[in-house]
């Protein structure tokens, strides 16, 4: 058979199969779409079940749950009903996440810039490997390391120094405790570094080389080149930060082990605190009675869920708006 006959043969086969292929296509398409739609079902069921579980607490405490500051599942006087309010938990979640971003983001951006702009290839490879290794460590290991190595180090070395130099600020006053909000924030900062730096690195790597060549041709220094790269990848970097924030907000095990677990409207970062995730981790296992107790923990979970969705949604919004701006700028 000649080459020509072979291809003719093949073409006629395809033609004869066209009808069958069409039906196969539509079946495949429908199946894949159905599988994709599962995500709505799963998300919907999660929201439904958590809300259902939290309903008793929502009915009992209403909106006041958000700014109540007592958490008393078993009041000393048995005739008094239990009372729950989540403000110290929300406060703890927000502050520890803020510390994590404040400390973690500059380091992550530094890593990402070094990798994409400055480092030689071999060095690049090693650093990427270790950063990704950091992401693979289970969070309970971070917690153990936090308790046995990080806390003693911070408490004996860094914190007294910090208080000596910045002690005039209200959030560095009071007795220094190792298990504290600041330690929680530091652990979270370490944990978000892999996420933020890996995504930022990819974002910087995706900046077209023409941009770099153009700015260098204009006589820019390396720092100026890095600034252009950062500006170009801004939306991606914000997305990376938001993903890091998402991890910080929801992190449970490690922070439970180092934050000090105190239901406390802290002002000093050396005080112990608690987060929405940590209270669920601590109290859910044996919370059998009263029913409103489980429900209140569920509501804490629901707030956490809402917070996570809000973080993600705002990340999308920021990315969407800044990409639109860039596109507009390019069109001019």
């Amino acid at each position, binding site marked *: 058979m000649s080459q020509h006959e072979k291809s003719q043969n093949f073409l006629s086969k395809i033609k004869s199969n066209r009808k069958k292929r069409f039906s196969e296509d539509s079946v495949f398409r429908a199946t894949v779409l159905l599988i994709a739609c599962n995500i709505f079902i799963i998300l919907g069921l999660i929201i439904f079940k958590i809300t259902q579980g939290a309903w008793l607490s929502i009915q009992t405490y209403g909106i006041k749950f958000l700014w109540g500051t007592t958490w008393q599942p078993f009041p000393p006087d048995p005739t008094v009903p239990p009372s729950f309010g989540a403000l110290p938990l929300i406060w703890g979640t927000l502050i520890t996440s803020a510390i994590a971003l404040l400390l973690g983001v500059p380091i992550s951006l530094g890593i990402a810039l070094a990798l994409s702009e400055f480092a030689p290839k071999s060095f690049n490879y090693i650093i990427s490997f270790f950063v990704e290794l950091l992401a693979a460590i289970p969070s309970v290991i971070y917690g153990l390391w936090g308790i046995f190595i990080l806390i003693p180090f911070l408490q004996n070395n860094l914190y007294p120094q910090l208080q000596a130099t910045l002690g005039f600020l209200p959030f560095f006053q009071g007795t220094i405790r190792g298990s504290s909000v600041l330690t929680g924030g530091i652990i979270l900062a370490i944990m978000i570094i892999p996420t933020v730096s890996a995504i930022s690195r990819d974002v910087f790597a995706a900046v077209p080389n023409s941009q770099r060549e153009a700015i260098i041709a204009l006589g820019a220094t390396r720092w100026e080149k890095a600034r252009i790269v950062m500006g170009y990848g801004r939306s991606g970097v914000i997305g990376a930060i938001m993903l890091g924030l998402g991890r910080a907000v929801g992190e449970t095990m490690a922070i439970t082990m180092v934050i000090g677990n105190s239901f406390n409207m802290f002002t000093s970062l050396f005080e112990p605190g608690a987060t929405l995730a940590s209270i669920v981790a601590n*109290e859910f296992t*044996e919370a059998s*009675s009263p029913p409103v107790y489980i429900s209140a923990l569920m509501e804490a979970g629901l707030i956490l869920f809402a917070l996570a969705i809000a973080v993600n949604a705002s990340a999308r919004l920021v990315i969407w708006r800044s990409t639109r701006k860039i596109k507009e700028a390019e069109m001019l």
Partner: protein
Amino acid sequence: MNYKIIAVTETIILAAAIAGFAVYSMYFTNQPIILSGAGATFPAPLIQKWSAEFKDMTGVQINYEGIGSGGGVKQFTEKTVDFGASDPPMKDSEFSAAPGTLHIPITIGGVVPIYNIQGIPKGLNFSGQVLADIFSLNITRWNDPKIATINPGATLPDAEIIVCHRSDSSGTTKVFTSFLSDESTTWKNAYGAANVINWPPQTIGGKGNPGVAAAVRQNPNSIGYVELSYALESNISYGKVQNAAGHFVEPTLETLAVAASAMSLILPSGDASWASVGSYFNLHNVDDADNAYPIASFSYALVYKELNVRAGITLDKARALTWFLWWAVHDGQHYASGLSYVPLPQAVVTHNEATLRMITFNGQQVNDWA
């Protein structure tokens, strides 16, 4: 060659072989007796040691799950396990929901104040009132006169006390705060006794005994409370506590056994409600308790008096279960001190013997060897 036929034949042969083996193992081998239990985490290591030894001895397999006392009582009441285990005795409401429950003390636990003060070894004296004041932050410095008067000779630092407690829901917290509530009305009215306490702010919560011990170890001038076995096994300073007779008693396996012996004088009958025993041994009205450590409690096995109330139980299973419990409170106690558990004193064992003789299956007494 038709591969389909070969594949189908192979599948049929394989399925037949598996089915045949299943039938064979069901009918032609001795089926082992398997018992299930669930409940308190505190006695879980001891019960697991017992299961291993008992299986070597008798072939009976005991699967125990440490899911917490509350869960144990729930599963026992719903009759989904052969026996339950709980640190506190059943409350009156729980007891009436599970009529015919027998309480069998299987081991003794104690809660111990631990502290970390530079230059002060173990053995600092505490009274219930002082502990209540410290944990409610009414005493805030170590050199407070209330601490100093019960510790003549100790040079206590002029330093802020850092209070550490359990952050997870815990029977240890319940035992400790029950003691504080009985010793101090201020404590009782402000915090009460429960598995989870609304602790004063600025106190540090640690997860589990290891979490509290780590918090105490890391924070200078701190105080916390842990299970006795944990204090004995980890190298940490722990204090003496004043008992009802006014003595400051060091927590040891012996002083806890003394407390249990004293308590055995006022224990209810095995088939009655044990709610009156409470979360810890209140020995205010008991003589001969001079050397009893005050913050001690039993851990209980819960079993039905008439074993046929649980579906699927056979005479063999009933005999195995009763035998296991009998063995656990007698020979099984030899394994206790090796794992830092307190062996039951003879008075409690005798009390348990009477309880175990009450067990019946279809109206017949089960432990005919006793």
